[in-house]
């Protein structure tokens, strides 16, 4: 049984982060942009767990534990903001939310 290398896990994490970043850049629906942000967060946790595993320490895993908690709080507040925004403006398309422009 050959274990995959650290490099393989990091490559997956980098690709996942890049996909999330591209999603954040090209999507116009705020909810989908938010989902892509979550993807980027999960990619970084994957890198943390991989490093932690291959260094034989616990610290990365405990960090991921904290990141999961913060992500839960972040999603709750972010979705509440999106709902408040929709209530105010009747849209969540990013290209129509340009009041602060100019």
């Amino acid at each position: 049984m050959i274990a995959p290398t650290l490099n393989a896990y990091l490559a997956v994490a980098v690709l996942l982060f890049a996909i999330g970043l591209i999603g954040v850049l090209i999507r116009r629906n705020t909810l989908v942009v938010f989902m892509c942000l979550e993807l980027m967060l999960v990619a970084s946790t994957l890198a943390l767990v991989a490093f932690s595993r291959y260094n034989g320490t616990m610290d990365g895993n405990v960090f991921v534990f904290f990141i999961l908690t913060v992500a839960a709080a972040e999603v709750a507040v972010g979705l509440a903001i999106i709902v408040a925004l929709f209530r105010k403006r009747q849209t969540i398309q990013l290209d129509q939310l340009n009041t602060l422009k100019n």
Partner: protein
Amino acid sequence: MGTFLFNVLAIFTLVTAVGVVVNRNAVNASMCLLLSLVGVAGLFVGLQAYLLAFLLLLVYAGAIVALFLFIVMLLDTKGDARPTLHKLPVAARVLAVGLVGLGVVSFVAQGKLPEPAIGNAPAVGATLKLYAYQLFSTYLLPVQILGFLLLIAMLGVIVLSKRFEGLEDIK
């Protein structure tokens, strides 16, 4: 975990992540996000972080994606426009795609990290007891701060979603 299982999980994760980006329907996108998170949880199992895999499924797939779906249903937006890179200058577009591509290519091609000698050491992160020792000794202060953070987030969500009389005319 064998290399075959790793490959399957990695490809599954990445393909479903692409599905999140390209799906024009937000419900389908959140379903793809769910599948991608399941793939990442499988990768966590491969890294012998069983508790984190379980928590990822529980917190992300159980709570966060359900919340996303709930909000998508609540807002009921029409189908998204085709994802485009419009509004961005051509130079910024080329630069962004080029930088991301360059980073990925350089990492995959040359980012070989030295393997530690203990590359196949037994897992240290497997048991709940180890987490408990760390959380309640070394990381006691962050745990308490996180408790306050969750409290503040709860209060913030209540304030954001409640309608206050007399404050509605504030533009």
